């Protein structure tokens, strides 16, 4: 692997690690409302006060006056690491109340400010990232699985199987999927829990997305099946399944990997778009999309810049994935030539 690829993979690992341990890294429960701190700006970390420099950073308490929130210099809250606060399930299994950062007493450490309900934006970006990125990965897995299977079938068998499957792929590619999803949402029952919405969302995004990888896979399989080593294996009496698994799958492996890096950011963005339009995960569960949806209000957009944090997170994640896709693509080309 080249150095650039290694660096990008490392960055991706860091992003996913942070999101995976969101409960631990986030100081607060993402749904916890603090009704006296709506739209509070990001906490400023201080090292120096009247008595001089402190190694341990601290934040001041906030007080609301006519111009919004200002720092109350009489209330000092030092920041601690490894503190006990709200309960959560680490990785979804281990119930604990340890958090990486926190302040004691009545102080609030809001690294990225708060939203209109006084919920900590930083905690929500992390927890929302879990939903959005997981949606991207699961949907990509769905799309690649279906795409790979149908693409292999079409490329390997050719004839009417090929024609009908690729016809269907073309139909799916031409579908205005956003409107399609709007329509699908209308048929769902009212009572959909966030978990089920998430599952449905990823399935629908994934199932709609199978067409493009299927076409790519089909092309490779169609050319691979007439290669000499494949024909030889067939001559020795290998079954179709054996051929596909042993000789053809390794050919498409690289394509699937590049496709994954292309599709994951695209599907993260798809989840964000749907939740932004109110079709995705609902309150109080955070996702980058539904967090951004408050910015549809003009007054919020122009007044509270820190609420753009989920958009920044989305951009960073997408850029890392896209750069990685580029690297993988050029490496593949290099290998094949």
């Amino acid at each position, binding site marked *: 692997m080249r150095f650039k690829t290694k660096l990008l993979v490392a960055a991706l690992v860091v992003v996913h690690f942070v999101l995976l341990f969101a409960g631990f890294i986030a100081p607060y429960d993402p749904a916890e409302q603090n*009704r006296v701190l709506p739209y509070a700006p990001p906490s400023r970390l201080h090292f120096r006060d009247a008595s001089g420099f402190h190694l341990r950073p601290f934040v001041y308490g906030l007080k609301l006056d006519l111009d919004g929130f200002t720092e109350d210099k009489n209330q000092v809250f030092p920041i601690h690491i490894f503190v006990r606060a709200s309960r959560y399930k680490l990785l979804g299994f281990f119930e604990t109340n340890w958090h990486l950062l926190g302040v004691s007493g009545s102080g609030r450490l809001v690294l990225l400010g708060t939203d209109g*309900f006084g919920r900590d934006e930083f905690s929500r970006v992390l927890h929302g990232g879990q939903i959005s990125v997981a949606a991207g990965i699961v949907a990509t897995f769905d799309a690649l699985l279906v795409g790979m299977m149908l693409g292999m079938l079409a490329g390997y068998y050719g004839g009417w199987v090929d024609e009908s499957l690729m016809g269907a792929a073309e139909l799916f590619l031409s579908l205005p999927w956003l409107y399609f999803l709007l329509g699908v949402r*209308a048929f769902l029952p009212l009572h959909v829990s966030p978990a089920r919405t998430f599952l449905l969302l990823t399935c629908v995004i994934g199932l709609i997305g199978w067409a493009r990888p299927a076409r790519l896979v089909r092309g490779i399989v169609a050319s691979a099946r007439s290669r000499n080593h494949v024909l030889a294996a067939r001559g020795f009496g290998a079954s179709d399944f054996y051929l596909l698994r042993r000789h053809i799958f390794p050919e498409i492996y690289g394509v699937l990997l590049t496709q994954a890096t292309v599709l994951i950011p695209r599907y993260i963005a798809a989840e964000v778009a749907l939740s932004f339009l109110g079709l995705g995960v*609902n309150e*109080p569960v955070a996702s980058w999309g539904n967090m951004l949806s408050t910015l549809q*209000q003009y007054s919020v957009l122009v007044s509270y810049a820190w609420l753009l944090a989920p958009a920044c997170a989305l951009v960073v994640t997408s850029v890392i994935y896209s750069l990685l896709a580029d690297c993988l693509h050029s490496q593949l080309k290099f290998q094949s030539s």
Partner: protein
Amino acid sequence: MKLITNLALLVCLHAALCFAVIAPETPSAGEELDRAADVSGHSGGHLTIGERAEPKTLNPVIATDAVSREVIGRMMADLVEINRATQQTQPALAKSWKIAPDGRAFTLQLRKGIRFSDGHPFDADDVVFSFKVYMDENVDSPQRDLLIVDGKPLTVTKLDQYTVQFTLPRPYAAAERIFDGLAMLPKHLLEKPYHEGKFAQAWSLNAAASEVAGLGPFRLKQYVPGQRVVLERNPYYWRVDRDNHRLPYLDELVFLFVGTEDAQVMRFEAGETNLVSRLSSENYNLLTRERARTNAQLADLGPSLEYNFLVFNQNDLSSKKLDATAQRQKWFRALKFRQAVSAAVDRDAIVRLVYGTRGSALWGNVGPGNKLWSNTSIPHPSPSLDTARQLLKSAGFSWNQSGQLLDASGQQVEFSIVISSSNTQRMKMATLLQDDLSHLGMQVHLVPLEFRALIDRVFQSLDYDAAIMGLGGGDADPNPEMNVWMSNGTSHLWNLGETQPATAWEREIDQLMQQQMITLDYAKRKQLYDRVQSLISENLPFIFLATPNVLAAADPRVGNFHPATLDPCTLWNVDELYVRGSVEIAGAR
């Protein structure tokens, strides 16, 4: 040939002279005009207003949407109108009225010598014609319900050219208030389409300006589809200012179609529009912060008459295939369950977080904005989860180990709340409510729906558990509220289509509401309506949440800007609005 040309010229000249005599800027002696003794301003100029949508029609009889009514209202006038500032009735096209001692007959004296905006004189025939149209079942006017008392229409008789008499089937409290909102129609223009059965098609948006005439301060000039409606000054308008100068001051009124409230605010900030009303508190605060640059006139008029509430579906669902909802209805029908929900709601948080403190918490249907009718003895308990838990416990609910609320049969309490997705304020209320109720162990799902889909569920399919909605805001009087509180009312949301009152308290409300409608004495009516309000707040068919303040803003150059709580907030005195520093025009002051 030459003779004919000369004759024609003479006729033209004569007509022009007649016109000049008919519509001078200073009124003639034959016209009985209304003199606004405390109004002064400058003539000329125009104002631009951004609207959230395009009007659907220019026909005052069939218009139902707010935008159409706002535009049409500037071109039309009523017999008696409600002064938006004082909330009292005042003479309009009728210069005076007398009520017979039995409270059933109203005799109205019309202003003499006044004209429609096309120059045609107005008299009792137009009034009789107008009411005939409003009460015609085939026309299906939304105002028709107001004119039917006890299933019988009121009768209108022309006594002489300028006197009409209205006879009601029985005494009707504050009957003169119903005239506000009933625009007088020009018989000479609308009789033909009415008799041909084409009334609903008359005065569509595509109507020529010459076909549309009214008695309001402005008349139609131009409609550009998708862009704007332009109204121009009505030279025959029947009000004059302090100096006997004929109103309105403005030459033109332009309604731009801009789409959303945010677009309204952006256009206003950019100086493209001059007036904006019904602002959200966030946008109002935004304009306040920018006041140093824009110098805009901002008005916070205090609590509106609108009430936002949570309603549980208590409809009879036996004829529908909604077993799951019907199952949950045993909670919704339990008074203690509703009381617990009400006790858990943090209304002050709603006022603070949803309305940015520009609003008021509500515990009843008549809020602090309605000074004349609000029952101030209704208690305002602070939110208390302990009270709520006790109420639930006494109603047989319990909690499992993970804190989830279970009913007597062990079923987990879980329901959904539908909200209009376009209403960000109600969406926010719902999120706060969800959090409040989660502390009681109730699992609440929020379902944002497109407004029409929501209305369909609440009024037609009845397929919902609970909804957050808003009502009220029309008039301060209790009578327009009849359709909500009467058990057979069309907006009796929690249980629509009752053939008879489902509960004893609903029966009592029915009686009280009917009683107040025929009681003419204010103090007695107030007593009756107070009792209605306490019954409602005790039995909680709606869990009242909060009401926003009425917020409006105007360009610093707009003179006589006196917005009011009642609709149309900024435009009710449009005839008095003027542009400061506008060029004075010949004939004007």
